[in-house]
């Protein structure tokens, strides 16, 4: 019994490390390419670490082509969209979880339609509407669409979280003459930290990496976000892979930071979105 247990463990490790190896190769190749001089971009066999290695790609990628501006645009878009998504979807979720009104479930199902229709499918009419509302070429055009594409899923998630807050707390809050707004801001929100963290993660990652809509709605180069800028840079400088991946790595820094800080909520988020075994 014990010996077979050890055998299974060793086999598990071998398989897991093999998988890890396959996962790691492209990532390693991206990082090492970012440090390669241009002359070594297509040099084979690949070296584990480029020799000679260089920081030039980072310097060039960051100083030319307004990279700083695109990074700042992405930051503005992702931070604003995240804050608005948290505000709007927690208000929606509060209404669905804690208030009584007519057509509540019908409205909720209508909202859930947003989870079934893929965002890319809507870019044609959104493009038309964006022109009408003078949101074409504006970062607000990105922000408002990102918030909208996120609220269905995030409201669904938060409704479950808010429904778990005990009735007693609500009664206590209302007893002192409190309004629903006070109950929402003083009790429900402070008690829902992990749920809100999941919303922050989901909406930040979405807004930071969104490509299809930004590509359509932003025509002016001064308003580009990072995904657009990186894709355009690659198609304009076909073989300058070192600079492409240097820029990509810098673009990944905020995502990795968010991931490390909120890592334990990732799994929690999955189990609170209503998936049960």
């Amino acid at each position, binding site marked *: 019994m014990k010996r077979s247990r050890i055998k299974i463990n060793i086999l598990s490790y071998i398989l897991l490390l093999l998988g890890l190896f396959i996962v790691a190769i492209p990532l390693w190749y991206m990082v090492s*390419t970012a440090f390669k001089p241009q002359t070594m971009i*297509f040099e084979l066999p690949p070296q584990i670490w480029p020799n000679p290695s260089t920081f030039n790609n980072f310097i060039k990628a960051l100083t030319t082509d307004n990279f700083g501006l695109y990074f700042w645009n992405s930051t503005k878009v992702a931070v604003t969209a995240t804050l608005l998504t948290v505000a*709007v979807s927690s208000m929606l979720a509060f209404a669905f979880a804690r208030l009584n009104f007519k057509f509540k479930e019908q409205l909720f199902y209508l909202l859930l339609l947003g989870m079934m229709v893929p965002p890319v499918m809507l870019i044609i009419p959104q493009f038309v509407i964006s022109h009408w509302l003078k949101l074409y070429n504006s970062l607000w055009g990105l922000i408002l669409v990102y918030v909208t594409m996120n609220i269905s899923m995030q409201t669904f998630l938060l409704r479950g979280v808010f429904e778990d807050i005990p009735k007693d707390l609500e009664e206590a809050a209302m007893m002192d003459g409190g309004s629903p707004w006070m109950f929402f801001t003083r009790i429900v929100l402070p008690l829902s930290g992990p749920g809100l963290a999941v919303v922050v993660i989901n909406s930040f990652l979405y807004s930071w990496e969104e490509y299809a809509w930004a590509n359509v709605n932003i025509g002016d180069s001064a308003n580009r976000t990072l995904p657009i800028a990186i894709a355009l840079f690659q198609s304009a400088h076909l073989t300058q892979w070192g600079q492409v991946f240097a820029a990509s790595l810098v673009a990944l820094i905020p995502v990795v930071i968010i991931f490390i800080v909120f890592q334990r909520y990732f799994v929690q988020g999955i189990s609170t979105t209503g998936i049960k075994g």
Partner: protein
Amino acid sequence: MHTKKSRNQVIPAIIFLLPGFALFFVFFLGPLLYSLRISFYNWNFAHVDRSVFVGFKNYIDQLKDPIFHRAVINTAVYTAITVIVKMVLGFIVANLLNQKLRGRTFLRVAYYLPVITSWVIVSLLFTYMFSGQGGLVNYFLKNVLHATSKNIMWLADPVLALVPVVLVDIWKGVGWTVIIFLAGLQTIPTELIEAAAVDGANNWERLIKIILPMMRGTLVFLLVVLILGGLNAYVPFQLITHGDPMDQTHSILTLMYRATFQRMDFGNGAAISYLLTLFVFILSFVQLKLLRKPAGE
């Protein structure tokens, strides 16, 4: 139950719902219906009043177009392969990680790294690795495995160009299925599996008779979400193949993009997106019917 609290709270409800539903109507529901209208017109973007109603013509044009057929086949093949491989690999890795192993937190994070790396970046990365001259994949096939004597021009071939697209999706997506399977596996009580072991069930029997039936909900969820995601593939096709060569490697949505924003034919673009949506709705409905728990369970 006519206490103060159970009364209709219409005014607070309106206040809490207003911002969300305003956005939802303007940027989701409105566009969804508006797009249906566009799909029945020869749409003139610059002068909307000069758009001409053409009935089902845009739909019929698409259904007759060999490029559309090709895009449907590409999307279906891509979806079938990626969904099956991601489910199988994800299930295996999740079961391996669901043991008491040293370093399993590290492994879990490592497997998740491709998931958080953005689509644009991984698509460019795979384009680079599949370069005809000097690409890492060709080097591996030619000089390490000796499986081919000359470089394969992946992106110049209408069938081979789909290989990097499929592989990038699998590489990026397995980590996510692992996490979902892990969440599902953790809901199975360990006593149940131990009891079966005491009764003499081997690993295989435990898998078939206990683990898989207990994970039915997770399997259904993954199948629905992954198929939906596959049918809506956009960025990897757009950035790796661009539909080349000769428009043979489009997905349905890159074809929609081409019709709308390169040919400025909004009517046909909208028709393509509605054909896809219609198919997605039918499929979701069938899936839910087929996979719903048998009565009495």
